[in-house]
Each structure stands twice: as C-alpha cells, then as structure tokens.
C-alpha cells in the first residue's frame, strides 16, 4: 500500500515533507490540455452544469423560488414537484475548483475566521455568498457562468451524509439573515455485527418519512403553494426508474475493455446527482447507455491498451486535477467503477416494502441503499459494509487494484479510509492499494509532478502483482 502525502494543509509540528514542485494556478490558460472525455455523453455535461446555474439566475423572472440545496438529501423530488429551483453549492464549488479559481472565495471566507480546514465546498460557496451580498445583488465578477442566484430558502439536512450539511446552511444564514433555513434528518441504522439492523429499520424509516413531511410543510409555507401529491408520486417513480437506468448503464462498464472511466463518471454523475427527478436526467442516461452499448460492440475501450482495471474505492476527487485520470489512462490503467457519486442501486436489489406514500418510499430507498451491504458484512468476520461494497465492485468489474483519495477538508468521506484499505486486505485479499491525499477544492496542497510519480509507483505494484498472479 502506498500512502501519499502532498503536504496536508497546515503541517503538524516537526513533520518533514518531501520537497515537491508546485504548479502555478494560472497554467490552466496556457498548457492545460482539455481533458479528453471518452464518451460524447460526458461532453454534454457542461450544458447541465451551466443550465443548473442559469436556472437559478432566471428563476425570479419565471416566478420560481430558489433553494440552496445539497445532494442526496432525499429532497430532489419534493423540490422538483414544487418547481423550486435548486442551487447546488457542491456543484458551484466543484466548478470553481475545476477552473482553478476557488482561492479568492476561500480567502474571503477565511477573512471572516472560517478555518481553512473546513469543508471547502462550503467555504468556497460561503465566500462567494459574502461577495454577492457586498455587491448588493450585482453579479460577482469572474464567477463561473454568472454564479448562483441569492436563494429564497436554504434546505439542509442533519442526515448521515455529513456535518456540513446542517452547519453550512446555518453558517450561510449569518450573511443572508432574512433567508429561512430548514434542516431535516435522514438517518440509517449503523452497522453493528452483533445487532440485526432490520429490527431498527422501521423506526428509522418512520423518522425519515416524518422529516420529509416537515420539509414539504416548509416548502409549502415558503412557496405559498400546496404540494401536488400526484406529481410528487410521479417524480418519485421517475427517480426510481432513473436509479435503475443509472445502474444498468454503469454496469455496462463491466465489459473488457471498459467503455467508460471514472474520469468521465465524475462528469456523468451530474444529472443523477443534481437533476434527479427530471426527464432530462433520465434521458441523459438513455443516451449514455446507447453510446456505451455501441462502444462495447465496437470493442472501443477508454485506454488504447487496457492493462489494468482499478476501482476508485473512496473519496471525492480533486476537481482541479481530473486530468490525472487521463494520466492513468495513458499508462493503460482504467477505472471501470467507482464508489463516489454512485449513489444509487437497482431498486429490485433493495427489496423495498410497498407503500403508497412517496415520502415513505424515499425513506425506505435511502435506508435500504445503505443497509443492503450489511448482511454480507455480517457473514464475513471482520468486514464492514463499505468494504463489502468495494469487494463487490472489485469482483464484478474484474479489478486489479484500488485507489482511495483522502481529501483533507472532508472528514465525512475521508476519515476511515485507512481502515477500509486495511480491512479490505485483511478480509479479502492483499491487492495493490493506493491512498492519495489532497483536497476537493483547495489546490494549494496539490502538485502534479509528484502525483504522477506516485501514480507511476502504484502502477509498478500493479505490474508486480499481476506477474505474481500469473
């Protein structure tokens, strides 16, 4: 296992860091190659992202409300059913990072005493919010595609995905004091090898359902509209179908050679993540499905010479360094599957109890999504659900190794990675593993040359492992 440190932001006392060279923020304009996307569908994603931002800017004149929202909170269908336009800080910050233009927002937040160690999706967006407020509604110069509109409400969640989901909305309200904030909850039972989680599912689902009802009440209050239950049910049905289609499409990547890589998936996840509950999102995956089928028929893989298949086992990517996937590809390493931003599963595999209440259905879907790896984990002593998921993907997609990415500002997805890697090797097999360290948005700790060196070293371990195997 190789552990990389780029230099965690804010080094600890006495720690020596290997000297590495740094890349200028400004290189983007000159020599940064546009990342070659293997699929044409992925190339359409910019339209989605831009469309989502401009929808927020047009909302007011269209008589719609804008809500700051956060992904996978179970709130998509409710918002869409009420024509609430979501403004996704996580997308906005990702775009700023990809354009390598997040630093000014991070510094703005830092100037008001937000620590640089906090979730950089949040501090980037809050910095932007602070600037927009100071400009009293005038656009923030340099904000990507005009940025996001000032919200009419903020819909957070104290759910298990992460703490910033309820602290970030609250922190934002300090600058937008007239904007109402809702924070709900959507928990799932924790994994305990000695406890049958199914006994607890009922009250978890009841809780999540009631919280979603509170969200509906809040949205009704602040839009002045009543929820159309039929429309909601139809959208939940659509999102179920989108879950299925999303997974069916991604499972095409099991093919050898794989027709699509994680580098693309960090783009193709956009409709599922930010546009769930819309026809456009569903249609996107229809197109992607067809395209991948075509590529498989033509035996067209992501890499000209696919040597190694690797799982992206955990971690949000460095949005400013997606080009590193291309680096992997050029060396014959492809990522047919990833854990990150694959927040769906085939509905039939979840065994969801029937219900007429679309909110209860959302709740069951969420709880079962997380718990459907629990039985497997219980059957394999010492295992944990996250590792079962990793093992499932390694086997289904025929992977030779796994890469984890630990982002310093995100405890939610990156604390526990050492343990996952170690458990994987202990309960499954000793496959080559790489743990990279960096961040999602903050580029100041990143160094391209060094990253490439570490990737090269990892590829050598993949080679060695393959030789041993043969």
């Amino acid at each position, binding site marked *: 296992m190789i552990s990389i440190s780029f*230099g965690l932001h*804010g*080094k600890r006392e006495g720690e020596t*860091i290997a*000297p*590495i*060279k*740094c*890349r*200028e*923020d*400004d290189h983007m304009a000159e020599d940064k190659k546009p990342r070659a996307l293997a699929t044409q569908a992925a190339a359409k994603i910019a339209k989605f992202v831009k469309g989502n931002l401009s929808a927020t800017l047009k909302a007011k004149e269209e008589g719609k409300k804008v809500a700051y929202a956060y992904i996978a909170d179970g709130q998509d269908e409710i918002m869409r059913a009420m024509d609430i336009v979501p403004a996704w800080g996580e997308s906005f910050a990702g775009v700023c990072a990809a354009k390598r233009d997040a630093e000014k927002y991070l*510094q703005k937040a*830092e*100037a*008001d*005493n937000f620590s640089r160690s906090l979730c950089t999706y949040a501090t980037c967006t809050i910095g932007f919010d602070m600037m927009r407020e100071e400009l009293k509604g005038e656009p923030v110069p340099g904000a990507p595609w005009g940025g996001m509109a000032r919200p009419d409400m903020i819909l957070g969640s104290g759910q298990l995905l992460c703490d910033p989901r309820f602290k970030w909305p609250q922190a934002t309200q300090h600058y937008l004091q007239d904007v109402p904030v809702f924070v709900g909850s959507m928990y799932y039972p924790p994994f305990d090898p000695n406890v049958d989680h199914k006994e607890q599912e009922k009250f978890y689902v009841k809780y999540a359902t009631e919280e979603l009802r509170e969200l509906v009440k809040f949205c009704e209050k602040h839009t002045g509209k009543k929820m159309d239950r039929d429309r909601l049910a139809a959208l939940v049905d659509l999102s179920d179908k989108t879950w299925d289609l999303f997974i069916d499409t991604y499972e095409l990547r099991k093919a050898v050679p794989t027709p699509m890589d994680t580098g693309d998936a960090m783009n193709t996840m956009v409709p599922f993540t930010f546009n769930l509950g819309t026809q456009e999102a569903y249609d996107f995956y229809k197109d992607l499905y067809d395209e991948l089928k075509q590529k498989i028929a033509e035996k067209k893989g992501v890499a000209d010479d696919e040597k190694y298949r690797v799982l992206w086992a955990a971690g949000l990517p460095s949005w400013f360094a997606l080009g590193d996937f291309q680096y992997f590809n050029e060396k014959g390493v492809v990522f047919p599957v990833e854990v990150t931003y694959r927040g769906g599963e085939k509905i039939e595999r979840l065994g969801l109890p029937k219900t007429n209440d679309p909110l209860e259905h959302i709740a069951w879907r969420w709880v079962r999504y997380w718990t459907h790896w629990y039985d497997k984990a219980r059957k394999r002593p010492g295992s944990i659900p996250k590792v079962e998921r990793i093992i499932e993907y390694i086997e289904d997609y025929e992977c030779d190794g796994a890469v984890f990415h630990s982002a310093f500002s995100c405890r939610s997805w990156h604390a526990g990675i050492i343990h996952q890697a170690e458990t994987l090797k202990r309960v499954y097999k000793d496959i080559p593993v790489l743990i990279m360290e960096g961040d999602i948005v903050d*580029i*100041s700790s990143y*160094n391209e040359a060094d990253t490439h060196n570490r990737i090269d070293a990892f590829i050598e371990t993949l080679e060695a492992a393959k030789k041993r195997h043969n």
Partner: protein
Amino acid sequence: MNYFAGVDIGSTMTKVVIIGDSIVASLIGPTGPEHRKLANKVMEDALNQAHLKFEDLSYIVATGYGRINVPFADRQITEITCHAKGLHSLLPTAKTIVDIGGQDSKGIKIKDGRVHNFVMNDKCAAGTGRFLEVIAESLNVPLVRLGELSLTAVKAAEISSTCTVFAEHEITNQLANGESLANLVAGVHLSVATRVCSLVKKMTIEQDIAITGGGAKNIGLIRALEAKFGCPVLVPPEPLITGALGAALMGKEIFEKFAEEGQTPTRSGRGLEEARLFL
C-alpha cells in the same frame, strides 16, 4: 529626569531602547540561544551609549519572544502591545500596523493609541521573513539585496505554493526553465505580501497602514504590500526598534500612572550583576 528601558528579545535580534524625554540610546544585537547573557550585554552597551548607570533606570519592560528570560525586567508585555505603542509614537496617523518578523507576522489595529485588534501568523513560514531567508540562500543572493533586486523585475513570477519548502523547489524549477532571477525574487516578495495581506484582512484595514519589524527594511516587500493593499505603506525611521521603543514607553506609562497616585511600581529587584551569575 526619569529614564525607562525597553528590551525586545526577538527570535533573531535583541534590541534595547532607553528613553528620557526622547530616545537616548538604541542598540541592536543578534539573539543567540542564551537570551539572558545577551540581554545583559546589550543593556550594558545601551547604558554606556546613554552615559547612564543601571540604577538610573526607573522602570524596565521586556517584550518579544524571549521576554521571560530577562531577569532584570520589571514587567513583561507582549510585542503586540509594544509594537503598537512604539509605532504610534513615531507615526501617529497609522491605524493598521503590519509587522513582518523573522519567524512570524502580525497585523495590529490601533484605535486611540491603543491596540484595538490583532491577528498573528506564527505557525507557517510563508508570509514571514523566514521565507525570504530561505529563498535568498537558495538563490545565493544576500538577504539585504533581495528587495532591491525584486524592484528590477519586469513582471513578478507567480508562485502558487503556500509552503516555503515547496516554493523553494518551484522557484529552482522555474529558474531552470529560463525565468529571470529578478522576476522570481519579485514573485517571492509578492507571495509574502499576499500571505500577509490575507492575514491582515481578518481585521478591517484602515489607513494609514504602516510596517514594522525586519520586513520594513525590505523595499521590495514594501512595494509589494503597497500593490496588494492598494495604498501607501508608511515606514518608521528605524523599524527594528519599534518594539523596544514601545516597551520603554509602556514602562514610562506604568511609572507615571503610579506616580499620579503618589506611588512607585514594584521593581524586579534584580540588577545586571545578578544576571551575570547565569553566564
């Protein structure tokens, strides 16, 4: 005539200032690991310069990183308060002070002659004199010349590293790729100025802005700061002694406060001779 002394033991330099009605002595010496020995020596030399004896001093204040190690001092006061006091006496219109020292950097807001707010960076070398030292050594340019050299640049090179160690290598790399020395040195100054500006922005910046500490002797750094702040940065006549001057002035203030009530402040009771026992 009452005389007051201020002793500023910084990480790299020890400074002593003695005041009566005005400054009667000021001295700077390099700090070594043995603060006490040196504090005595510099104090002795300062007294000689002023033609005074130790007993002529009515109150002594120690400040700086090593302020605890001045046994003959009557009071320890932080360099934040002392720099503010000293700078204010030299440049009364300054409302925001930037202090760039060898190992740390600070921002201080002054209101009505007193410290109103302060921010410090003492965790990270980038944004302090240390950064410039490392680069100077790496580029084989004497530190004292670094500032002038930066002014001859055509355009400041961009250095994205926020870490001294990484930046050093980034610079070596750029040099190898043909970037001019002057441009790189200008980039380094801009880098420090950016970090400092970022720090100081945590307070509301009000003019006049003034600089103190070792960084104030670097013309390149001053220009870079002016570019970042977008306004002039005032420089006191002898920036290295503002801390010691402020300490002496604080001593005077304390003494006079007691005198108003017909009392004298408690003294340390230690003389220079006693301290010599630790040599």
